[in-house]
């Protein structure tokens, strides 16, 4: 256990990435785009405002507890407008901590409104928490010359947001492992259990039910990539592969189960396909850093 925890450090270290200078430039661009896509995410949500008009069972959770003295429709109107203004200002003034804080507040209020009908809206959690972490970015966007320590702070916060995104997949993967339901028919049973509840007909919904054994290795593969996702935070050479694997997972769940996680897809693509920490290197070294199989391969072949 001590050995495993000892390996949970970024390798190479942040100092290495500070020295090369490339990572900082990339991370800054990604943060900038992160705030731009918040406008798009807000647009996608606000266009569905009509769904709030006659929704049953509004029971405010703690971030929206202030709404109790106001009429339901004025709360819906205010929070939607505040959300739009907050993310637009966040996108324009993302270089300033105050604007990033305001964007977080807008996202928090909107997400809390979405989650005040008896069930939290899971898809927005990654947006909520990454926007929270980005408040801690040092205000270095406008500086002509940035000190090494400020660069390191910036990369640290950025890494924290990446690690959070990977952590949630690991948590999901670990719980799948602990459930013990990953036999040959597990995926077929999941699909058969899920589709009648949502009453949708996804493009490839019947395939895992008709050919469970064919899909089993893919299902096990996804559990592997989910469970060890957090490992990619510490071994950046794996980030692109993990990003692609988790994106494939989302496309798979969309095609087979009609499950939509658009915010996750945006964030995975943005944070991992061109990760600031990704390095070019020998494919063999990259494969050796895969958890379990890489370690095993290294023992046998190296």
């Amino acid at each position, binding site marked *: 256990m001590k050995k495993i925890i000892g390996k949970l450090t970024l390798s190479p270290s942040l100092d290495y990435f500070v020295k090369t200078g490339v990572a900082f430039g990339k991370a800054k661009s990604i943060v900038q785009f992160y705030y731009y896509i918040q406008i798009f995410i807000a647009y996608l949500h606000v266009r569905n405002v009509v769904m709030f008009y006659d929704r049953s*069972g509004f029971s405010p959770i703690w971030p929206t507890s202030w709404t109790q003295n106001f009429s339901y429709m004025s709360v819906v109107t205010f929070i939607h407008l505040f959300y739009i203004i907050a993310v637009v200002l966040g996108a324009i003034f993302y270089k300033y901590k105050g604007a990033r804080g305001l964007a977080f507040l807008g996202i928090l209020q909107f997400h809390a409104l979405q989650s005040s009908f008896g069930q939290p809206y899971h898809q927005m959690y990654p947006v909520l928490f990454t926007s929270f972490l980005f408040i801690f970015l040092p205000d270095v966007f406008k500086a002509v010359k940035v000190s090494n320590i400020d660069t390191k702070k910036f990369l*640290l916060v950025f890494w924290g947001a990446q690690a959070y995104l990977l952590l949630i997949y690991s948590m999901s993967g670990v719980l799948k492992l602990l459930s013990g339901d990953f036999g040959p028919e597990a995926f077929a049973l999941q699909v058969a259990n899920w589709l009648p509840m949502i009453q949708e007909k996804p493009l490839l919904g019947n395939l895992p039910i008709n050919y469970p054994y064919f899909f089993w290795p893919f299902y096990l593969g996804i559990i592997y990539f989910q469970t060890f996702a957090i490992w990619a935070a510490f071994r950046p050479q794996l980030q692109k592969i993990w990003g692609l694997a988790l994106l494939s997972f989302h496309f798979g*769940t969309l095609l087979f189960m009609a499950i939509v996680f658009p915010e996750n897809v945006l964030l995975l693509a943005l944070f991992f396909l061109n990760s600031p920490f990704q390095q070019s290197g020998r494919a063999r070294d990259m494969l050796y850093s895969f958890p379990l199989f890489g370690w095993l391969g290294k023992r046998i072949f190296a």
Partner: protein
Amino acid sequence: MVDWFSYQKSLTAGEKEVLEYKILRFLITSFLVTYFLAGLYVFRFEGGEKYPFFSWNLFTEAPREKTEFILRIQRYGDVVFEEPIDHKEAFKRGLIRGFETPLVFHLRVQDLGRSIKAGNRDRMSFYRMLVEDGFKEQPVEYEILSIYYHTLEYFRSGRIQNQDSLGVFTSK
């Protein structure tokens, strides 16, 4: 507290920056560890979550057999159904409003069924109110049933192995 301020004052600008970095590193690490531990903790709550923490317990179950609750509408406003329709069919026919998706309505029916089965009157009244609020016309006479089925067979043919009525209700 005083010691902390005097300690900070004694530091050079460079040392202060290093200290700030270490504090930030501690905060980020604490955030990640707390989120992970809180996720494990809230796993025990209904749905595996307590806002804003979530265990990410999604699609972990692959049940071969399943017991769930259905709501079967017998009378909807002035219309009497000779063959009662279940809540999924009712959603399809546009008889339910105020629920974002069929899944959300289905989950509320499960909540109602669970509360009836547990004999929890307060929760039952709450979930009855939520569910009945979703009917576009009133009054609605409906039955809550507990059904048991084999997952794959139910998916392919809709065949139910067993069913138990938990009661017939009329919305106001």
